[in-house]
């Protein structure tokens, strides 16, 4: 018996939750649960976890696009069936992990992965650059200011050598969100790629009456830029509508989320801002927010060359200048942000000076600074 549209409520099952995780553990994980002693990265992308029992779990981490097909997943299943007793896992950064219980099984697994073209790159461990976490972009969302999968592909192609090696001073986490909503929560990443709009919403007065609840649209604006107004629409009727005070608009798109008659996306207006220096872990320094260093780069499809070049530049300057263990943000704070701009050659613009709420926290209220090339 399957679903019966005539009797949709018959046999209905709800609220059963996800399957229990334990049934998906490879035997070596199940046996040594909570009894791991230490781990070692044997080569980029290959981890060994040692248990108190002496057992070893070898993990091979492979990169993947976040947007993947069931054909690709089935191929992953074939690999897991062949080498890993039919088990695998995914990481929070969209990598897949294949686990085996002895060193002898690692090389055959690596060989198999390598034989499948560029579909299963091994890496993403240690002091390198692992997969970019990202959001939907033009592949699925209605508010993006840039694409997600396309930008990530272009950037990862360029950073690929850092995915397969461990030559950086520390791990560098890159994240992309395609609008200020930041579904991917990129605000605490070493390098954040953020889609930004730069034109205030248009008002579709002919559609607004049917589409939007005006009080919600007005209340949605964090800056009070959306105001009620009367307007004569194309049919010549005076209708209740809204207007936008463009001077107050920060291009967040909240109004559009509440009211589809207020689209703001635009091929010229939209693009990418780069933020750097965030971190999540508590290691050494406390978690930090990413800071805006490049306010705008254009959406040059299909490969976003300006964005790719900007990120490579930051990574290379950091790689050369930072001390061992220093995350991008720790490095920038040690040398000072004025030095960060000088060394990377990124032009400092007024857009990097905060004028939003809580802004004062970021202004310098001290005579301590460095004389960089910014001071003429």
């Amino acid at each position, binding site marked *: 018996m399957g*679903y019966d549209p005539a009797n949709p409520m018959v046999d209905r099952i709800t609220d059963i939750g*996800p399957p229990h995780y334990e049934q998906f553990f490879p035997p070596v994980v199940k046996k040594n649960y909570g009894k791991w002693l230490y781990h070692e990265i044997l080569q980029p992308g290959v981890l060994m976890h040692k248990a108190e029992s002496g057992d070893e779990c070898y993990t091979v981490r492979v990169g993947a696009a976040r947007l993947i097909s069931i054909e690709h997943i089935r191929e992953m299943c074939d690999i897991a069936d062949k080498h890993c007793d039919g088990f695998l896992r995914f990481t929070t950064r969209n990598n897949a992990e294949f686990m085996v219980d002895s060193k002898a099984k690692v090389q055959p697994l690596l060989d198999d992965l390598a034989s499948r073209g560029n579909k299963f790159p091994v890496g993403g461990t240690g002091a390198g650059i692992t997969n970019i976490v990202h959001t939907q972009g033009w*592949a699925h969302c209605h508010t993006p200011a840039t694409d997600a999968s396309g930008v990530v592909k272009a950037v990862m*192609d360029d950073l690929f050598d850092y995915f397969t090696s461990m030559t950086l001073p520390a791990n560098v986490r890159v994240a992309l969100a395609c609008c200020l909503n930041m579904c991917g929560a990129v605000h*605490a990443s070493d390098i954040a790629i953020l889609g930004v709009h730069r034109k205030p919403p248009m008002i579709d007065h002919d559609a607004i009456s049917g589409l939007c609840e005006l009080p919600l649209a007005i209340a949605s604006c964090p800056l009070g830029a959306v105001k009620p107004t009367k307007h004569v629409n194309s049919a010549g009727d005076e209708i209740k509508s809204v207007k936008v005070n463009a001077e107050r608009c920060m291009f967040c798109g909240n109004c559009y989320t509440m009211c589809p008659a207020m689209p703001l996306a635009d091929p010229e207006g939209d693009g990418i801002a780069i933020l750097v220096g965030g971190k*999540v872990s508590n290691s050494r320094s406390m978690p930090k927010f990413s800071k805006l260093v490049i306010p705008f780069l254009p959406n040059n499809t299909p490969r976003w060359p300006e964005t790719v070049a900007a990120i490579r530049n930051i990574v290379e300057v950091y790689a050369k200048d930072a001390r061992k263990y220093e995350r991008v943000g720790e490095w920038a704070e040690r040398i000072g942000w004025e030095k960060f701009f000088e060394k990377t050659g990124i032009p400092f613009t007024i857009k990097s000076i905060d004028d939003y709420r809580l802004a004062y926290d970021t202004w310098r209220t001290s005579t301590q600074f460095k004389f960089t090339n910014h001071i003429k």
Partner: protein
Amino acid sequence: MPKHDTPLLDQLESGPWPSFVSDLKRQAEKSPQCWDILGQLELSFKDRITHWKHGGIVGVFGYGGGIVGRYSDVPTQFPGVAHFHTVRLNQPSSKFYSSAKLRDICDLWEKYGSGMTNMHGSTGDLVLLGTTTANLEPLFYDLTHDLKQDLGGSGSNLRTPECCLGRARCEWGCYDTQALCHHLTMHYQDEIHRPAFPYKFKFKFSGCPNDCVAAIARSDFAVIGTWRDDIRVNQAEVKGYINGDYAPNAGAHSGRDWGKFDIKKEVLDLCPTGCMSMSGDELKIDNSECTRCMHCINVMPRALRPGKEQGATICVGAKAPILDGAQFATMTIPFIKVDPENEFEEVIEVIEKIWDWWMEAGKNRERVGETIMRLGLPTFLKVMEVEPIPQHVKEPRSNPYVFWESDEVEGGFERDVKEFRKRHAQ
């Protein structure tokens, strides 16, 4: 569905990183609507703008979340994606799968959807990308009956909880992240499936202060493992690192020649509290000064381990910058036992106190961190019945604008101005 020319997207087929374009083409051979995904995406690359419309409300009967509605704004050109809703499947804790389970999910999605997925979405769900309204109920029926699993959350509800892999394969899990994540997911099915909150609410569980699921940056309720006794030291292994027998940081830096391992420079001097020292070959840690940042343990995993008295710190109220600016979660409960024996009673009690207050005090579309900002951390601590301690702040306030309450001041706020005037002429 015909193929479309995709000259821009085709340029994303080259290069060493796996190509989602090649993958879409591969899937299109089986699921022809993928040609229309490619076609519409190509149009977006050409126009440099999205071609998706607002979602509208779609879902399965009795649930207020789990499906994100999506429609094309060029449906006549690309009928295969006219409806293109996403289905969020609640992932198993820490995302281990059997191939059998994944194959079942693939078969289900081949039958009812586009064949494209996200493994996984940012919140943690397994995201099935692209189906029609008519397919939702049949898909849900098969999902619950045959696959015996369920949807995740979306909307103003408890979002699908997520955890790090912790004790399954990491030596630093200070509590059982999977068990807590799974237990709470099951305990709060109603809150996940039926939006009743002012706004979204996220749980994230990391086993140690490395915080691999970024709980402190993106969850309203972050449970981060920690310990309160001494770091366990194996002095022989410390010597092993000093002698160069083992690569520091578990080999994470082995791609570059950083010179011989220098315990002073790489561990002692980078300890944020300066609480480590060497006495001859012996490593000393003044544990009462340690803030459990994990640096030394990360660098010498064979020699150092978290202490044995383990539990978690609870931080509340993280969110992305929308609207007032980004917030990290604020440390609220410094140490709590995370005990499967009593079904995590202590943690549940904390959660429900937060919800009871936030559902009253929170405004529409206000994350709990914003409610705390608006009404103040002191208010929140009172609600939580938590003793204020210096650990709650980085530093004491520097303004004197204290909101004293009437009953805190001798004699209270009620005074007689006439009595006052008898002694003080106008």
